[in-house]
């Protein structure tokens, strides 16, 4: 067991491209669930629509990368609008069921054989992000070491852009949460009818929060797609949505820094368990598992972690218990 390697691998992952993507998705979810109280169980679909919007334009229709980004964002906003129109009038549990169903619809459609020509079926689409990497100011090479941490030039470029987006979106969230608009969102979370009685159009405010959160999550979808230079349908399963929930609740919902802290801590623990288990299996310390089962153990721990957090510390690390809207009305 090489604990030094386990530690550096976990830290690299906790700062790496995938953590950035999860963090962006959690920032979006924070706006929807944390501030507005919308129980969106379909966050994976927003990441998928952005990633696929980009990939289809570039790979299938051979248009430029920037058209891909634009279409990806428009697709995400359109999906949020489409999903919000019928459901935002419904009670929280109905919203949850409909969003989870809609996310599954998106996944089934993009992986279907019927649309394989356009969407790539279960293999997905590849090689659409080359233009993004051409923009990298980092010199060609095998990567850069920072102390014991090694990142490839490509991942480093994704990380620079990604963490900048995280900073930008956190700033936006911070400013919005303090604005009158943000106070209305929190009001909706606490007591929808009270806000309605003040003459505010609750439905439209919820829609704005859903769409803005979806757009932020969409950037997470871009980051995942760009990092793999591929999109494939099964990344966007419901487990992704619930990993994002775990991140948000771990860090603290309705807190600007909650998603960032949550994502880094989650990324560290996730990879730490993964690498420790595979090292232990490879070194024959654990004989009753094989290396493919370690991935499932991680997800058991994510599930158990989500349960325990929700039961014992629903406000997470940074949150305020009184501020978490957790009652269906």
């Amino acid at each position: 067991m090489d604990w030094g390697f386990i530690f550096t691998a976990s830290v690299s992952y906790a700062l790496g491209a995938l953590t950035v993507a999860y963090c962006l998705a959690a920032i979006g979810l924070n706006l929807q669930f944390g501030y507005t109280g919308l129980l969106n169980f379909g966050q994976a679909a927003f990441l998928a629509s952005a990633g696929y919007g980009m990939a289809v334009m570039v790979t299938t229709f051979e248009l430029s990368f920037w058209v891909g980004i634009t279409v990806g964002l428009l697709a995400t906003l359109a999906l949020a609008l489409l999903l919000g129109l019928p459901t935002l009038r419904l009670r929280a549990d109905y919203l949850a069921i409909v969003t989870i169903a809609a996310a599954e619809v998106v996944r089934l459609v993009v992986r279907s054989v019927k649309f394989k020509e356009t969407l790539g079926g279960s293999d997905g689409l590849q090689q659409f992000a080359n233009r993004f990497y051409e923009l990298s100011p980092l010199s060609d090479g095998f990567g850069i070491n920072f102390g014991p941490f090694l990142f490839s030039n490509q991942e480093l470029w994704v990380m620079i852009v990604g963490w900048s987006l995280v900073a930008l979106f956190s700033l936006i969230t911070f400013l919005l949460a303090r604005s009158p608009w943000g106070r209305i969102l929190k009001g909706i979370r606490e007591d929808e009818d009270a806000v309605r009685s003040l003459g505010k159009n609750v439905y439209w405010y919820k829609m704005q929060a859903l769409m803005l959160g979806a757009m932020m999550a969409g950037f997470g979808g871009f980051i995942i797609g760009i990092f793999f230079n591929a999109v494939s349908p099964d990344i966007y399963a419901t487990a992704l949505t619930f990993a994002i929930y775990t991140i948000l609740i771990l860090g603290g919902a309705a807190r600007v820094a909650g998603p960032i802290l949550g994502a880094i801590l989650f990324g560290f623990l996730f990879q730490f368990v993964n690498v420790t288990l595979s090292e232990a299996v490879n070194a024959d310390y654990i004989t009753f598992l094989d290396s493919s089962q370690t991935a499932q153990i991680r997800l058991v721990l994510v599930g158990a972690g989500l349960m325990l957090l929700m039961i014992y510390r629903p406000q997470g690390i940074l949150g305020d218990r009184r501020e978490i809207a957790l009652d269906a009305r």
Partner: protein
Amino acid sequence: MVHWSVTRIVALVVTCVGILGGATALASAAHAAEDQPAGLVQGFLRDLAGNPVPGVDVTATDTAGFSGIGTSDEAGRWEVKVPGAGTYTVELDEETLPDGVAAPTKNPIDNVVVTGSTRTVLFTLGERERTLTSKWDQAAQLSVEGLRFGLIIALAAVGLSLIYGTTGLTNFAHGEIITFGAVITWWLNVTLGIPFILAAILGVVLSGAFGFVNDQALWKPLRKRQTGLIAMMIVSIGLALALQNIFLIFFGGASRPFGAFETQAGIEMGPVSLTPKDMAAMTIAAIVLTLAGLALLKTRFGKATRAVSDNPALAASSGIDVERVILVVWVVGAALAGLGGILQGLTQQVFPLLGAQSLLLIFAAVTLGGLGTAFGALVGSILVGLFINLSTLIPGMTPELKNVGALLLLIVVLMVRPQGILGRRSRVG
């Protein structure tokens, strides 16, 4: 409080920038790609008749020069360990195919993207011949299959709906009770060698016990703590995720049949062909559902259950032991869901995502019928079963998209009549 979070962000951003830009290179990261946790490319080889094809070599290669080989086992399953995330080309060695098995329709398969741990690649061995039957014959066959599926998911839907009615919990882990029933019966039957019928009865009993443990160990304490309904919903999601992966660890990802009634010839009745086990499954489901319905309508306890569903506080004040009613609803609901899982495992096969895959359809059924009503769940299930099967008749609709239709139906129902067909009109918005 707010200022504090901002300082944190700034600190984090500064730290990140520091790590990214400031540190000098010390060439010490010795561990390169080969120490990365391995991924797995796997698949199943079956001939046109559905029999497994053993002893066939499959190779996975990538552009970086990696090459790995795997051979299919007795069950037709093959796997190739790959060094981790990346894009691979998977090729089947046609020389190793047994005589009489047609070559795959596509070989090699390019651009297989491995992102997580396991990636399944399927080769289609030979073109399937399509039999042409008239639309009406197809519709008859699809209706019967839809009815079968509807009756089976109704078993789980009734429990889900009653649990919602009595406790307000939207239980996203209900699918895992279905899987539990199927997996535990498979274990009793195949691993321990208990005859199937006995194993199935034990499986139903154990599913009921599983429901008992669920309620007493988790949900009852949460109700005592007065945990909010949304919090409980998220807890159930965590539970579902954990249980699904526990099943995957112990059962493996493959689909496996029970030890009995594995293959049966269909019996032709006019345009409809059904295997005896399908008929048995439908009959059992119909009888059990009728009994459950009668119990709800006619017995004292059924009345108490409906009273609690209607208004728990009023029921408690008229002397009904609400906690006891909830416990019985959990035990019976879980036993019914477990039975549903066993019947589904019998008509398809047993696999760890069995319940999770039907959960959303069950939600569609329950919502369609009216959340919280047992009879609504029954009607909704049968409608969903019929709808998803008959929707494949629509030109341009393929079987893989049939669940999409049902989920879209769910969304439309919520727009038009959110209380469902049999639900009471109350504010849900």
